[in-house]
C-alpha cells in the first residue's frame, strides 16, 4: 500500500501517502489497548477522627462502658482470623451481624442511640476482616464506628 488517493483520482490527482499515519495509529491503538484497564468501582468509608480524643491516652475510666466491641485476633497456626463478640467466638458474617443487630436494638430500646461499634483488632489481622466488621455495622445503620488503638508511640 504505497499511496492512497482520497476521493476519485480524476478529481484529486495528488495521492496522499497515509501509510505512515496508519502505522502510527496502529502503534497508538496497541499502546492504549494494552494499557487499558476497566476501573473497579471504588468507594470510601468516612472515618473522621475525633478532635478531642484518640491519641491522648485513655478517657474517663469511671464512666459506664457502653459499646459494641468486636475483637479480632490472628491465628498463626491456622492462618485465619478469630472473631470474638463479648466472649463468644463468631465464625460467620451472618452470626456476627445478628449479634451486632441484637445489641444495637437493646441500646435503642434503652434510648442510647450513639453507642459505638469498636473494632479491636490485632496488628496482624488482614484489613479485609476489619472492613467486614465495618460493613456489617453499616448494614445495621450504625454510623459511630471506632478503632481501638494502642498507646501513643512515644509511650511505648
Amino acid at each position: 500500500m504505497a499511496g492512497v488517493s482520497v476521493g476519485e483520482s480524476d478529481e484529486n490527482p495528488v495521492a496522499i501517502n497515509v501509510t505512515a499515519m496508519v502505522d502510527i495509529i496502529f502503534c497508538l491503538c496497541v499502546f492504549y489497548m494494552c494499557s487499558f484497564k476497566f476501573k473497579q468501582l471504588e468507594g470510601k468509608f468516612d472515618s473522621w477522627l475525633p478532635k478531642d480524643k484518640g491519641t491522648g491516652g485513655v478517657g474517663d475510666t469511671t464512666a459506664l462502658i457502653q459499646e459494641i466491641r468486636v475483637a479480632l485476633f490472628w491465628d498463626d497456626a491456622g492462618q485465619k482470623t478469630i472473631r470474638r463478640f463479648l466472649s463468644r467466638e463468631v465464625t460467620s458474617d451472618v452470626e456476627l451481624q445478628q449479634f451486632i443487630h441484637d445489641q444495637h436494638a437493646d441500646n435503642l430500646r434503652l434510648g442510647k442511640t450513639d453507642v459505638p461499634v469498636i473494632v479491636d483488632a490485632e496488628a496482624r489481622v488482614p484489613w479485609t476482616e476489619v472492613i467486614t466488621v465495618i460493613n456489617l455495622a453499616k448494614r445495621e445503620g450504625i454510623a459511630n464506628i471506632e478503632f481501638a488503638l494502642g498507646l501513643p508511640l512515644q509511650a511505648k
Partner: protein
Amino acid sequence: MARKHGPTVKEDVTANLIPMIDIMFLLLLFFMLGADMSQRELAELVLPMADTVVEEKKEKSDDDEFRTTVNVCHRSDSATFNCPVNAKNLVCRQMDHWQIVIRSEEFDLETVKEQIETLAGRDGDPDSAREPDIDPIARRKMSRRKISIRADKFAPYGHVQQLITLCGLAGIYKVEVGAAKPPIEKKV
C-alpha cells in the same frame, strides 16, 4: 474470423483504506479517553469488598487540592526481593514486606511519619494545609488535608492503625478508608 477479447482488467487495484482509518481513529479516541491517567495516585492492589461503601463523586470539589491517597500494599517481586507466600496469593504476615506508597513514593512505618507531618502542613506557611484558626475542640490548628487510605485486602491492620495514629498526631482528622463495591449480581 474475428477473435474474441475478454474484458480488460485494470491493473492498479488499490485497497480503500479510508473506512479502516476511520475505525482506527474511533478506536484510538475511545482508548485515549478511557485511559485514566490519574492511576499514578493509586497503587496496584486488591481492595476489600463492602456493599455499604459510598461511591466517590466524580465532580471536583475545593477539597481536592488538599487530598492525598495513601496506599498500603505488598512489595512487588524484583531481582533482590521475592515473597513466595504473596506470589501464591496467600496472606503474607511479614510486616516488613508491606509498604506505604504515596504518589509512587515508597515508605515504611518509620519513614512515613515525616511525610504525614509534611502533608498536614506547617504553621505560619501561607500555602500550608493547616487551618488558619485554632479549633475550639482540639485547641490547636487542625489540618485541612484529607487522607484517603487504600489498603490491600491482605494488608496488616497494624499498618492502617499506625497511619490513623500518625494522622491524629499530625492534626489530620479527615480520614477515609477505601473499599471496593461488589459487582451487582443479576437476579434470574
